């Protein structure tokens, strides 16, 4: 079966993905790969693909992403299906300029906003940052609750 991962924001498609117990195999760009889980200590493990190497995967964030270390390379990865509203790609998405904590929600879902009006307030480095609408419209979605921690660059709310 085909499976899509996102690695450092890029979609990577693999075919013939088979994951059974202690092994996984798939085809990437026409080449077959096979990995066997040799040992595991919590979130760190040893994989074998003909030679052994060390890998580790962190606890996934709310966006379903985790930090992955494989063979000395660090990446942010996720199964694409788990990936949520990211990077503000969709129109009207208001993104976080840096990591922070949702301090206050000023406009509930359904309320009208004017361009430049603050929808919510993000707290970071002990300062408050107003997240403002970039157009006149209606708040369609708010992805977080007050008090939640958010990464930089994620969509916080959507205005239509």
């Amino acid at each position: 079966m085909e499976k899509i991962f996102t690695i450092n924001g890029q979609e990577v498609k693999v075919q013939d993905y088979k994951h059974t117990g202690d092994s996984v195999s798939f085809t990437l760009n026409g080449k077959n790969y096979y990995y066997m889980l040799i040992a595991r200590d919590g979130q760190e493990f040893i994989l074998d693909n003909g030679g052994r190497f060390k890998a580790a995967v962190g606890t996934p964030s709310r966006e379903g992403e985790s930090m992955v270390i494989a063979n000395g390379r660090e990446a942010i990865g996720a199964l694409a299906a788990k990936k949520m509203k990211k990077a503000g790609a969709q129109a009207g998405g208001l993104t976080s300029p840096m990591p922070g904590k949702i301090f206050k929600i000023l406009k509930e879902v359904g309320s009208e906003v004017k361009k430049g009006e603050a929808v919510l307030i993000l707290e970071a480095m002990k300062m408050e940052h107003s997240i403002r609408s970039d157009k006149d419209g209606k708040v369609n979605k708010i992805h977080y609750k007050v008090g939640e921690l958010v990464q930089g660059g994620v969509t916080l709310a959507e205005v239509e």
Partner: protein
Amino acid sequence: MKIKKILVANRGEIALRVLKTAKEMGIKIVTVYAEDDKSLPHALYADESYSLGSGALSDTYLNKNKLIEIAKKTKSDAIHPGYGFLSENAEFADMVEKAGLIFIGPTAASITLMGDKIGSKKALEKINIPMIPGYHGDDQEVSTLAQKAKEIGFPVLIKASAGGGGKGMRIVHQESELIEAISGAKSEALKAFSNDKVLVEKYVVNPRHIEVQLMSDTHGNHLHFFERECSIQRRYQKIVEETPAPNLSQELRLKICETAVQISSGINYRGAGTVEFILAPDGHYYFLEMNTRLQVEHPVTEMVTGHDLVKYQIMVAQDDKLPVSQAEIKQSGQAIECRIYAEDPDNNFMPSIGKIDRIGTPTLRDVRLDCGFLDGTEVGVNYDPMLAKLVVWGENREVAISKTLHSLDEVLFLGVKTNRDYLKRILAHKEYVAGHTHTHFIPDYKNDLAAKEFSDQDLADIIGALSFSDKKRAVSGSSEVLRNPWTELSGFRN
């Protein structure tokens, strides 16, 4: 008097650094913490630890009255301010001493003098400390400015007095370009700042940032612990520091160190301080500023000289004589510090947050990880995103670089994106390896330092790892190898 108890008015790795030396000296330590730091090791491992509550920094780590109140209540003899926060706050130093406590740092007068960037330069010019040659005068005739530029020597920098953002700024390499550049800078300055006053300064091509570690006691001993090379900076913040500075003659090294001592003795300084210089490729060096506190990068000096700078700070604070003479302080081998940040260097150094599942431990000899976090603690949004300092000693620079590269792989911070890979790219860069460091290193080699694209093999390895991430169970004993996996792991670091 002998100091028996110290309150550390700081957090994270530097609070733990002071704690470590205090324990070696048999001194009790009181730490303080903001509520959002209550699970961090500095709030757990002291003899006593007190909450500063929550809220703005002015209510917690910068709350002068509260800190002094806790010091009095716990019968502390002294306050160590660490770096940052209140470490260069003259009013705080004064308040601490008025409260009958010892401030482990310089006098309020020294802090005030060096905190005034213009005043300090004027004071130091009087004792013949080299300053960047320049003309800052009111006579703004083009002919006067041109004359001054010729006196200073090319290349010169012409910039708007009211300046900023590169507006009204010109670098002039030869006399023929001078008049046009002065007029151009003046009209640009007038448009941008409604003021056409410009100043002329010597322009240093590929400057290096060299600083000298100083320590003075109250008995007239002003010592230096040699220099540090801190040119590798991003956004004016150092990320890789080392000592000794590579490609620096012994003669120039000593001259720079002696100039720094001229400053500490000239202002009758007390305690630990650092003088920062700009070093030009032609060997001229100029005073930049003096930091009147312990520096983040002090460990490289400790590794190479074998002296504990925090111990000397405490000794000086209790009026002891420094136990070494200048002749006894020697450099041996090479030490490199890398600052590990929770940030993504490949995405504009965006800070990252999250829970640290696990912190890796360095395994090589003479490697030190000064870290303010524990497994399971959170990197939040409220403080500087520095996670730790990796400090590595080797018998020479080549060995120190290779040990650092290996150790950077070991000290993973599983859970948050770090700059470890970026630090590896810096240390492996041929110009760094050759010791050709200067303050424009990161912007100049931006392309070389950019992340290499993942190969298919890299991507496959990452997908392989991700595939096993959601399985919390242990490996089932389905084969011989898996029965006792850890005996198989002879090549497994950590």
